[in-house]
Each structure stands twice: as structure tokens, then as C-alpha cells.
């Protein structure tokens, strides 16, 4: 190997990463070449200096911020899953029994279309009441599933929006409240009241994760009326620093 080829190997030579044959070849070359020997010394000094460069300190709250982001991402991804919890099977059984009765009733006694529609409508209302009741009666993970199932199964109605808004603002469990926010966010275009309720909720939520989720939903949907309430959050000295930073970014970028 010539000097140029030897020099290219110097960093690996110093790091001890050459194979024994190459290591030996470099060593022998150094013995007979003052130029390369000087180059080796200089390189050694410089690489040793690079090795002393201190690490840059990571901001203290970065890991916490990432944990929060992960939680939000996880919850969002769960929002795409359609759950079929035990209670829906019970509800299905009720509907099935009622439906069987209805079919027999219709075939045996009445055959008019209007009656059939009336009965179907009653049954649908009964089913909806059962679904809405689940939002009151279930707790924890079952309730999260209930929120998603209700929002995926039912037509958007005043009763449904009321039930979800109530859950979003009052449920004791932050994850359940988050599920309600995500469910409501899918209904913004279908019912004008949903937008108002989400904006109103900005002043109610105190959990940073929920504040971030609301801000994200409202800014991503480009809802201008949310600007002032979001600014109020950023100006509130009690607001978490991550939420403030997130709100500032989102307002700039989206609204």
C-alpha cells in the first residue's frame, strides 16, 4: 500500500478495527515513513480530542413529552378499532328476541307496511336507548368501548350528542373522556352543536392530554371560532407548558 492508501486506514488503525494483517501492514509502513508517522501522530491527537467532546444535554422534560405523545397516538389508533364488547352481545340478544317476536307478530296478525315501520322504529329506539344506557352504566375500559360502539353504530342525534358531551365533560376517567372527544370529532360535520360543545369543553378540561386532543381536533378541522378559547388556554398561567407550546404551534400552523 502507498502512503495515501495507508492514511485512509488511519482512523480504523487507531480504533483497532483493522484485521491483523492490515494492522501489521500499517505498523510496518510507519516504521519506514516519517511523513505518515507524523500524520498518524496528528490524527491521534485530533481523534482523541474529538473523543473528549461532551455530550449535549437533553432537555429534562423530553421523555415525559414523548410519553404523552405516545399515549395520545395509542388512543387515536384505538379509535379506529371497532369493538364488540360483551354488552353488545346482550343488546344483540335483546334485539334478536324482540325481532323474533316482531316477525311472528307481523306474519300472524298484521301485514301493513305502516305497522311494520312503526315497530321497526320502536325497536331501533329501544336499541338506541340500550346503547345510550351503556354510557351511563359501564365503567373504565368497557365504557371506552361503549363510546366507540355507540358512535359507530348510532345515527347522530340530540340524545347521542348529549350523552357523548356529558361523557366528555364529566366522566371521572380521562381515557373515557378522550374517547368521547375522538367520537365527537367525527361528528363535527354532521351536527353543528358538536363544534360548539368541543369549543366549550376547552374551558372545562384540565387534563393536559385532553386539552391537547381538543386543540388538535379543533385546529385540524380549521375551526376559527376555537382560536380565542385556545389563546385563553395559552394565556392561563396554570396551563401545562406542553399544552401551551402545542397550542401555539397548532394555532400558527392550522387556523
Amino acid at each position, binding site marked *: 500500500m502507498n502512503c495515501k492508501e495507508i492514511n485512509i486506514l488511519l*482512523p*480504523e488503525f487507531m480504533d483497532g478495527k483493522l484485521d491483523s494483517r492490515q494492522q501489521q501492514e500499517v505498523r510496518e509502513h510507519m516504521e519506514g515513513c516519517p511523513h505518515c508517522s507524523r500524520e498518524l501522530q496528528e490524527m491521534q491527537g485530533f481523534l482523541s480530542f*474529538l473523543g*473528549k467532546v461532551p455530550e*449535549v444535554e*437533553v432537555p429534562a422534560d423530553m421523555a415525559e413529552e414523548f410519553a404523552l405523545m*405516545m399515549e395520545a397516538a395509542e388512543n387515536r389508533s384505538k379509535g379506529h378499532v371497532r369493538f364488540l364488547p360483551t354488552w353488545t352481545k346482550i343488546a344483540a340478544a335483546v334485539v334478536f328476541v324482540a325481532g323474533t317476536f316482531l316477525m311472528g307478530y307481523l306474519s300472524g296478525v298484521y301485514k301493513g307496511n305502516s305497522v311494520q315501520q312503526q315497530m321497526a322504529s320502536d325497536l331501533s329506539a329501544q336499541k338506541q336507548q340500550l346503547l345510550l344506557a351503556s354510557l351511563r352504566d359501564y365503567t373504565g375500559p368497557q365504557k371506552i368501548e361503549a363510546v366507540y360502539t355507540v358512535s359507530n353504530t348510532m345515527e347522530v342525534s340530540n340524545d347521542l350528542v348529549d350523552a357523548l358531551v356529558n361523557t366528555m365533560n364529566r366522566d371521572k376517567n380521562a381515557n373515557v373522556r378522550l374517547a368521547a372527544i375522538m367520537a365527537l370529532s367525527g361528528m363535527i360535520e354532521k351536527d353543528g352543536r358538536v363544534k360548539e360543545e368541543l369549543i366549550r369543553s376547552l374551558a372545562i378540561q384540565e387534563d393536559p392530554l385532553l386539552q391537547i386532543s381538543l386543540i388538535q381536533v379543533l385546529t385540524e378541522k380549521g375551526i376559527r371560532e376555537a382560536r380565542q378559547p385556545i389563546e385563553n388556554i395559552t394565556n392561563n398561567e396554570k396551563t401545562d407548558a406542553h399544552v401551551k407550546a402545542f397550542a401555539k404551534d397548532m394555532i400558527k400552523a392550522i387556523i
Partner: protein
Amino acid sequence: MMEKSSDERLMKQLAAGEMKAASLLYDRHHRHVYNYFVRMTRDSDASRDLTQNVFLKVIRYANSWRDDKVFLPWLFRIARNIMVDHFRGAQRFYQLEDEPEIILRDKEDAVRSSELNEAVGFLMEAMAKLPPGYRELIELNRFQGFSYKEIALTTDSSENTVRVRTFRAIQKLKEIYAQMIVD
């Protein structure tokens, strides 16, 4: 004592939906990724966001993880793609001149001295004057401890090209640094 899972094993777990694996990978590597961004961009605020973004992408891309991959080069491929995307719009990456607002932490207490801090300041300035491609090779090889083979995997290059270019990058950095000391 429980055996420490390899990064690759953790990725497999993450691909199977175990989010805890993402936290472990983050704990192990976010400092390195953050340092990479700070030294490449000299912007600590942007580096923070870029780092978080890298690990969110790790979670997002976990489904595409294959057993024949090696984690660190894969992680830094994501990091460099994110960095290129971040700077592409404003073409700011090639024009960065601001002083970095960064806090340095010593590897060993004994090495802390004002002389060293001054020398490191000069070195960081010299790094900023290197072409970004050279800066990245110094970063990956000298600061992140990547082998030439790992750098080749990260940068889609050949091991020999990396060997030659890294040597040139070190030489260039040495020259710029020496010139700064003289001036």
C-alpha cells in the same frame, strides 16, 4: 439478572403491538438522536421536535420491520430523512450560522475545564463550516461510534466510499479547526 433485550428484539415486540418496547427504545437512544440533530443543525429547539418525530415514526413504521434489519442504521436513516425534510423547504440546512443554544455535559467530570469548553466551541464552529455530508460522517463515525459498515447501511453507500470520505472529512475538519485556532 434479566437479560437486556436487543434493539432488534424490541422492534419485533413493538411490531406485535407492545408499546412498552417503544418506551425502552426511546430511553436507550433518544439522547443519541438528539445529539445527532443538535450537532447537525445547531438548533436545539428544532432538534427536540425532530427527535420526538423520529421515535413517533419508529412506532408508525414498526409494522414494516423485518428480522434482517439492524436497528441503529435503520433509526438513523429515519433521522436523516426527517432532517432533510425539515430543511428542504427553506433550504436552511446549508445556511445555518446561528450560535447553538446548547448545554454540554461532560463524559467524565475530570475533563471539564474552560480550556476544553473553548476548544469544543471552536470545534463546533469548525463542524458547522464542513459540508453537511462530511459533517454527518464525522457525527456518525466519531460521535455516534458507527462502524463504516453501519454508516454505509445508514447512508445507502458502500463501505469503501464511506472509508475514503470519512478520512477526507476528518482531514478537512482538522484543517478548518487548525485555521481557526491560528486566527
